[in-house]
C-alpha cells in the first residue's frame, strides 16, 4: 500500500469537508446576510434535526425482523423521559442502555 496515496486521500476528505462546512461563511462573509438566507438559517435547524434522526435510522427495515422495534422502543423511551425530565443525559443514557439490551439480548 502506498502511504503517499493514503495521505492524499485523507487530504481530499479533509479539504472536501472543510469546503462544505465553510462555504456559507465564505459566500456571506462581509455582506449582510440576504433575508432569504437568514430565513433559511432560522428554520433549517428544525428540519435538519428531523433529517438527522431519520439519517441515524436509515438502515432500519420495517419489513424485516426485528421490524425497527429496538429503534422504536428505545427512541420512544428517550423522547418520553426527555418530555418528563427535560434532561438530555437522563434521557440518552437509559435510551442507549435499553437499545443495547434490545439488540444484544432480546432481538439478536
Amino acid at each position, binding site marked *: 500500500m502506498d502511504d503517499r496515496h*493514503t495521505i*492524499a*486521500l*485523507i*487530504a*481530499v*476528505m*479533509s479539504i*472536501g*469537508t*472543510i469546503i*462544505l*462546512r*465553510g*462555504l*456559507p*461563511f465564505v459566500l*456571506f462573509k462581509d455582506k449582510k*446576510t440576504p433575508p*432569504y*438566507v*437568514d*430565513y*433559511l*438559517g*432560522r*428554520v*433549517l*435547524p*428544525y*428540519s*435538519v*434535526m*428531523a*433529517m*438527522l*434522526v*431519520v*439519517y441515524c435510522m*436509515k*438502515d432500519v427495515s420495517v419489513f424485516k425482523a426485528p421490524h425497527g422495534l*429496538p*429503534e422504536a422502543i*428505545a*427512541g420512544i423511551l*428517550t*423522547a418520553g423521559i*426527555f*418530555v418528563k425530565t*427535560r434532561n*438530555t*443525559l437522563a*434521557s*440518552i443514557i437509559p*435510551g*442507549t442502555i435499553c*437499545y*443495547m439490551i434490545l*439488540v*444484544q439480548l432480546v432481538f439478536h
Partner: protein
Amino acid sequence: MSTLQLLKKVLITTAPVMSGYIFLGIGFGVLLAKAGYGVPWAVLMCIVVYGGTMQYVGVSLIASSASIVSAAITTLAVNARHIFYGISMLPLYKGAGLKKPYLIFSLTDETYALTVDNLVPRGVDPHLFRFLVALFDHSYWIIGGALGALIGTKLSFNSTGIDFSMTALFITVFVKQWMTSHDHFPALTGLICTLGCLLIFGPENFLIPSMVSITLVLTLARKRIEASLAQDGTEKKETRNG
C-alpha cells in the same frame, strides 16, 4: 464563573456526545487497524477529517486504494448536509474572531446539535463556550480513534448498539425544539421530506434529494412560516414584559 466552573459546565454540556464519540471513535479505530493502519493514522484522520460517517466510509476508500476523484465525490455526497449547518450558524458565529475558523471546521452533526440547543450559561462569552464545546467534542473523537486503533481486534466488551447514543441525542434536541416552538411546519417538513426521499432513493442516496426538497418546501412556504415566526417573537416579548 471561574475557569474550573466553566470547564465543568462544558464537560456536562458535552457529556451526551462523549460516550458516543469515544465509542464511535473506537469503532473507527478498530476498522482502520484491521485495514492495516495504526494509531498515527487514526489520530491524523480524527484530527483533520473529523466526521463520523466520512471516516467510516474513508476506511473503505483507503483500504480499496480509491482514486482521488472518487474520494472527492464521496466526500461531497456524504458531507453535503454540512452546508445546512453553516447557514444556520451564520448569525451565531458572527463576531467570534479568531475562534471562528475552528468553530466552522469542527461543526459536526453532534456539535451542531449542541450549538443549536444553545446551552450557553449566563455571563459566559458565547463564542468561548461554543469553542470549548467544539474542542471537547473533537478531543473525545480523537481519544476514541486512538483507543480503537490501539486495541484493534482485541476488543472484548460487546458494545453493539452504543452508537444509539447519537440517535438519542438528536431525538432529545428534536423533542426540545418541538416543545419550544409553536409552528411545527419546519420540523414536519424535515421529517416528511427525508422519509419520502429515503423510501424513493434508498439509504445510500437519499441525503442530497432530502436537502433539495427541504429547501424547496421551506422556500415555497416562506411567507406562511415567517408570519408565524413573527407571531412567536411577539408572544415571547409579551411574556417578558408581563
